[in-house]
C-alpha cells in the first residue's frame, strides 16, 4: 500500500527507533531504582547513576531523531509526489547514525564522555553525527528541490531539520566559562525542543491530519503558518527562562518570563485545530487508534509542555523550583506528550502502510496507549509532588539536601511503581507495532 518504493527505507528507521525506545524506558526504571533504594557501593562504582542517566537521555534523543528521520523519509515522497532523491544515502546515513549511537552507549559504560548533561557524546563521535545529519538534510533538500509541486509543509520540514542540524553545533565546543557554556547549551536543548522540533512536529502533524481527515490542505496550512510563527515568536526569546540564575543582566527576567509565559498559546491552537479538523473530517475513520493518538498528541502536548511548563516559568516561582524534581516532572510530561506521542502517531500512520494493511487489529495497541498515557500522567504528578516537597523542605524549611531526599522516598518508590506500568505499556505498544495484523472483518 505504500505509494512510492523508496518509502520502504523508513521501515528500518522506525524499527530501530522502537527498540531504542524500549531501552530508554528500561534505563529510566533503573534510574528510579537508584532513587528508591540504597545500592551497594561496588555496583555504584562500576555503573553509576550518571552513566545510566546519560544512556537514558541519549537513547531518548536517538530514538526520537530516528523517528523524525524515518517519518520524513516516509512522508516526503507522498508530499513531493516523487521518489526520494537517494535511497543509498538514506541507508548510509542510518548506518552512520546507528553505529555512532551504539558506540556512544558502549563508550559511556567505560567513561568516554564529553561530560555535558544530555550532550555527553564525545566530540569525535559528534562529527559522525554531523556527517549523518548533513546527509539527511541534503537528501531531504534534493527531494524537495526536484519535486514538481511546492508546498508549505515541504519547506517547513526542511527548515525544521536544517535548524535542528545547525543548532547541534553549539553543543560541541569546549567553553572555559561555565556561564557561556550553559548559554549555548540551551541553544541546543531549548531551541531544539521549543523551536526546531516544534516546527517539525507541526509540519508532520499537519501532513498526517490532511492525509487522515481529508480536510482541505489550504485550511490546515494556514493553521500551520500561524502556529509555527507563534512557536518561534515565543520560543526564541523564551530561551531566556533558562538564563535567570546563570549570571545574566536583569532584563532577561522580563524577556524570558513574558515570552515563555506565552509559549502555551501555539500549543493551545494546535489542540483547537486538531479538534476542529477531526470534527469536520471528510474521510471515514478507518483506524480509530490512529485518531486517538492524534488527539492524544494535541492534548498531552498542551498538558506537558504548555501547562506544566507555564507553572514554573515565571522568575518568582522558578527561583524556588529551578533544579528540583519539578523540572523532572515537566521534562517527562513534555517529552512524552509532545515528542513520544508525535513519533507514535508517525509509527501508527506509516507501519500499517509499510506492511500493506489498511485496517489493522488494534486491541493490544489500545491497551498500550491507555497504559502509557495513564502511567505517564501519574509519573508526572508524582515527580511534581516530590518536587513541591523538595522545594518546601530544602528551600523554605531550610533542611539539608539529604534530609529532604529521605523524606521524598515514598514518592520515588511510587514513581518506580508507575514506571514499571509505563514500561509494560511501552512493550505492548512496541510489540503491537512490530506484529501489526489485519483486523478481522
Amino acid at each position, binding site marked *: 500500500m505504500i505509494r512510492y518504493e523508496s518509502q520502504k527505507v523508513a521501515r528500518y528507521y522506525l524499527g530501530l527507533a522502537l527498540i531504542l525506545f524500549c531501552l530508554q524506558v528500561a534505563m529510566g526504571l533503573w534510574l528510579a531504582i537508584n532513587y528508591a533504594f540504597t545500592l551497594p557501593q561496588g555496583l*555504584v*562504582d562500576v555503573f553509576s547513576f550518571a552513566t545510566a542517566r546519560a544512556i537514558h537521555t541519549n537513547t531518548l534523543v536517538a530514538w526520537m531523531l530516528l523517528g523524525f528521520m524515518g517519518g520524513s523519509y516516509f512522508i516526503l515522497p507522498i508530499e513531493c509526489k516523487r521518489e526520494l532523491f537517494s535511497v543509498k544515502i538514506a541507508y548510509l546515513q542510518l548506518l552512520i547514525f546507528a553505529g555512532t549511537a551504539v558506540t556512544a552507549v558502549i563508550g559511556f559504560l567505560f*567513561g568516554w564522555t564529553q561530560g555535558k548533561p544530555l550532550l555527553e557524546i564525545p566530540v569525535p563521535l559528534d562529527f559522525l553525527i554531523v556527517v549523518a545529519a548533513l546527509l539527511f538534510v541534503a537528501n531531504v533538500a534534493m527531494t524537495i528541490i526536484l519535486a514538481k509541486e511546492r508546498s508549505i509543509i515541504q519547506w517547513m520540514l526542511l527548515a525544521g531539520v536544517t535548524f535542528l542540524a545547525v543548532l547541534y553545533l553549539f553543543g560541541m565546543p569546549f567553553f572555559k566559562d561555565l556561564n557561556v557554556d550553559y*548559554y549555548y547549551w540551551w541553544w541546543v536543548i531549548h531551541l531544539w525542543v521549543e523551536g526546531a522540533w516544534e516546527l517539525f512536529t507541526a509540519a508532520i502533524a499537519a501532513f498526517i491530519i490532511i492525509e487522515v481527515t481529508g480536510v482541505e490542505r489550504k485550511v490546515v496550512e494556514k493553521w500551520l503558518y500561524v502556529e509555527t510563527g507563534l512557536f518561534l515568536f515565543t520560543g526564541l526569546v523564551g530561551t531566556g527562562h533558562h538564563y535567570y*540564575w546563570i*549570571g545574566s543582566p536583569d532584563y532577561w527576567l522580563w524577556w524570558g518570563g513574558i515570552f515563555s509565559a506565552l509559549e502555551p498559546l501555539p500549543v493551545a491552537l494546535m489542540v483547537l485545530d486538531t479538534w476542529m479538523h477531526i470534527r469536520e473530517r471528510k474521510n471515514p475513520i478507518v483506524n480509530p487508534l490512529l485518531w486517538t493518538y492524534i488527539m492524544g498528541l494535541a492534548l498531552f502536548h498542551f498538558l506537558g509542555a504548555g501547562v506544566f511548563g507555564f507553572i514554573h516559568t515565571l522568575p518568582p516561582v522558578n527561583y524556588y523550583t529551578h533544579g528540583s524534581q519539578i523540572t523532572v516532572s515537566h521534562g517527562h510530561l513534555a517529552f512524552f506528550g509532545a515528542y513520544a506521542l508525535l513519533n507514535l502517531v508517525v509509527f501508527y500512520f506509516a507501519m500499517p502502510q509499510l506492511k500493506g494493511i489498511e485496517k489493522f487489529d488494534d486491541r493490544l495497541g489500545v491497551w498500550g496507549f491507555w497504559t502509557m498515557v495513564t502511567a505517564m500522567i501519574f509519573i508526572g504528578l508524582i515527580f511534581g509532588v516530590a518536587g513541591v516537597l523538595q522545594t518546601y523542605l530544602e528551600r523554605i524549611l*531550610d533542611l539539608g539536601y*539529604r534530609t529532604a*531526599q529521605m523524606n521524598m522516598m515514598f514518592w520515588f518508590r511510587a514513581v518506580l511503581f508507575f514506571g514499571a506500568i509505563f514500561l509494560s505499556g511501552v512493550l505492548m505498544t512496541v510489540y503491537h507495532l512490530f506484529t501489526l495484523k489485519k483486523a478481522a472483518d
Partner: protein
Amino acid sequence: MTGKTAKTIFWLGTLSSAIIFLWLTYDFHQQEPKFAKTDQINDQVVAGKKVWHKYNCNDCHTILGFGGYYAPDMTKAYYRLGENNIISIVMNPELVYKDSFRKMPHLGVTKEEAVNLVVFLKWVGTIENRHWPPQDEKFVKAFRLREANAQKLDKTDIIMGACGGCHSLETLGRKIAGDFNDIAKRISYDKDTLVKYIHDPQSVKPGTAMPPQNVSPETAAIISDFILSLKAGKEVQK
C-alpha cells in the same frame, strides 16, 4: 484569515523574535564578564572544569541548577563544604558515604585533579547569579563573614571547616567519623603524632578508615592543639 495573512504572521513572529534574541545574545556577551568574573578564570579553573567534565559529575549533580537531580547542587559548594571537605569527599566517597542512603561512586580522582576541581568550584561560587540556590545562601553569608573577620576567626570555625565533612563537635559537622570530644578521650597521641596522623593516617594507625587530609602543616597543628585541649579540659573537669 487569508493564507497571506497567515504567512505574514509567520514571518513577523519569527523574524522579530530572532532579532530580539540575537541582540540579547550580543548584549549578554558584553555584560557577562562582569557577572561571571571572567578575569579570574585562570588555567587552574579551566583544568578544574575539565575534571568536572571528565568524571561526568554533572549527570548526578546540578550546577547553576542544570544537570542531574540525584545529588546536591554544586554552584555554591565551595562555601557549603570548604576546600578540604570537597577533596576528601571527591577522593574517598566510599568512606564519607559509607552509611549514607545514597552512594557516590569512587571515581579514582587524583589529588591534583581534586585540587583543580576545588579551584573551579571556588570560581563558580563567585558568579553573581541572583543568590541562587536559595538554600546555600546561608553558607555564602557565613563564609563572607568569616573572610571579613579573619583575625577574629574562632578556632572551631577553622577546625570544623576542615574536618566537619566527617567529624562532629557537639552540634556542628557531620556524624560520620565520631565526635571530637570522644576522640580526645580515646587517643593517646602527642601533638607531633597527631599532626602526622592527620596528613597520613595509615602511617600511624594502619587499617584506619580515615583518608589523608589536605591541610597545611599550620592548620594541622591548630587542629591537633584543639583536640588535645579537649582532652585536657575533660581531665581538669574531673
